[in-house]
C-alpha cells in the first residue's frame, strides 16, 4: 500500500487542507496552495476532500506504484503519463502495481495536485499531514519528498476511471492575473498617491515567490506619510510596532516589493501591511509562475464576501457533478 519516489521533481510535498488553530503560536496553516484543486483531485478518486495528496510545483515527480490505485491530477497544466501513456488532467485514471507515473513539462499554472485513492497516509502532526518544512512538521519526516522514499497510502476503494471535472468548473489565473485586495488597518500610513499607484501599476511575480509568500515587483515604490515612528517600531517607515499578519496580507518591506503571505507564512511581525488579498483569490496565487504580470484590484468587504460565496458555489457544482 505505497508508492516509491523515483524522482521528487523540484519540490513535492504532502499537503491536505492544513492545520488551522495554531497560528497564534506561530505555526502557519500550511496545506495546499490551491485548495480548490486539491479538493477536486480528492473527489475524483473517491477520497474525502481533505485527504492528503501531493503538491508539486513547476516539475512533476516520478512515482512507482506498489499497488493498483485510482489517481487524478488537477491544478496546473502538466500532462501526466502512466508508463509513457498520456493521461488527461482533472480526470480519474487507473495506475496498476508496478507502473510508473511521470509528467511532461509544465504548460500553464504552477502547481499540480496528485490525489491517490486511499490518500497519502503519512503520520499526522497537529491534526494535519501537511508538510511545513521549516518547522519539520507533517509529510515525510517534515520535509519534501526525496529519491527512494516509500510513501504509505490509506485504504481506499477508489472511484472508477474516466470521471472528470467539467472544463467550465476548472479555474486558472488569466494574464495579467487580477488579485482583489481589501485595504487594511495600516492603509493610513501611505500617501494617497502611493495608494492609487499600487492599484494602477502592473506588477510581476518575482522568482523568489514560494509557499511562504508571493513577492511582486515592477510597480512604483510606496511613499509613506511623514510620522514620528512610535516606540517599538523600527526606523524604516515600513516598520510598525509588531502586529498580526492574516493569511493573504500584503507586506511591503522598505516600501518596494509587495509580498502576499501564503500558507506557510509567519503569523506576525514588524512590517506594515497594505491589506489582504481576498480569500477567493488565494488559490489563484498558488498557480502563478515567476514573471507572470499581475494587477491588484481594490474591493470592499461586500465584494469580498460575494466572491467567497461564488467560490463555494463553484465547489458545490464540482461536488454535484462528481456525486
Amino acid at each position, binding site marked *: 500500500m505505497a508508492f516509491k519516489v523515483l524522482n521528487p521533481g*523540484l519540490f513535492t510535498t504532502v499537503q491536505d487542507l492544513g492545520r488551522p488553530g495554531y497560528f497564534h503560536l506561530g505555526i502557519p496553516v500550511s496545506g495546499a496552495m490551491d485548495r480548490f484543486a486539491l479538493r477536486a483531485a480528492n473527489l475524483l478518486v473517491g477520497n474525502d476532500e481533505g485527504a492528503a495528496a501531493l503538491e508539486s510545483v*513547476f*516539475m512533476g515527480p516520478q512515482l512507482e506504484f506498489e499497488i493498483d490505485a485510482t489517481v487524478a491530477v488537477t491544478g496546473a497544466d502538466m500532462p501526466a503519463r502512466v508508463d509513457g501513456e498520456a493521461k488527461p488532467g482533472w480526470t480519474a485514471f487507473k495506475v496498476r502495481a508496478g507502473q510508473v507515473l511521470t509528467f511532461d*513539462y*509544465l*504548460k500553464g499554472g504552477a502547481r499540480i495536485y496528485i490525489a491517490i485513492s486511499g490518500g497519502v497516509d503519512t503520520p499526522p502532526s497537529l491534526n494535519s499531514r501537511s508538510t511545513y518544512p521549516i518547522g519539520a512538521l507533517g509529510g515525510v519526516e517534515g520535509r519534501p519528498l526525496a529519491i527512494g522514499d516509500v510513501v504509505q497510502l490509506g485504504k481506499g476503494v477508489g472511484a472508477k476511471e474516466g470521471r472528470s471535472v467539467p472544463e467550465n468548473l476548472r479555474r486558472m489565473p488569466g494574464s495579467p492575473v487580477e488579485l482583489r485586495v481589501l485595504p487594511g488597518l495600516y492603509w493610513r500610513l501611505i500617501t494617497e498617491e502611493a495608494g492609487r499607484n499600487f492599484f494602477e501599476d502592473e506588477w510581476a511575480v518575482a*522568482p523568489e515567490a*514560494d509557499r511562504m509568500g508571493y513577492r511582486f515587483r515592477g510597480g512604483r515604490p510606496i511613499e509613506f506619510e511623514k510620522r514620528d515612528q512610535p516606540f517599538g517600531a523600527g526606523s524604516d517607515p515600513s516598520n510598525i510596532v509588531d502586529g498580526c499578519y492574516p493569511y493573504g496580507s500584503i507586506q511591503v518591506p522598505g516600501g518596494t516589493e509587495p509580498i502576499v503571505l501564503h500558507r506557510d507564512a509567519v503569523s506576525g511581525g514588524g512590517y506594515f501591511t497594505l491589506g489582504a488579498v481576498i480569500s477567493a483569490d488565494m488559490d489563484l496565487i498558488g498557480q502563478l*509562475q*515567476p514573471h507572470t504580470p499581475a494587477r491588484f484590484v481594490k474591493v470592499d468587504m461586500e465584494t469580498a464576501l460575494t466572491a467567497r460565496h461564488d467560490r463555494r458555489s463553484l465547489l458545490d457544482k464540482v461536488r454535484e457533478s462528481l456525486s
Partner: protein
Amino acid sequence: MAMKQILSPLPGTFYRKPAPDQPAFKSEGDSIAQGDVIGLVEVMKTFFEVKAEAAGKLKVFLVENEDPVTAGQPLADLED
C-alpha cells in the same frame, strides 16, 4: 548534422555561471557530455542545475544570462 536542444525543465531565471564571480559552466563550441551542467535556473530561492540529456557540441545559447525562461523553453542548440 543532427541538432538537439537542451530545454529548461522549469520556469525561472537562467544563469550561465555557478556564481557571479566564476566562469560560465560552458561556452559556445564546448564539447558536452551527457549529464554535464550547462546552467542554473533559479526559482523559489532554489538553484536547479540544467543538465544535458545527450552528448554533443554546444553550438549556441538561445537565451541570455539572467533571462526569464519558461518550462520546456530551448536554452541551447547542440550538434553531434
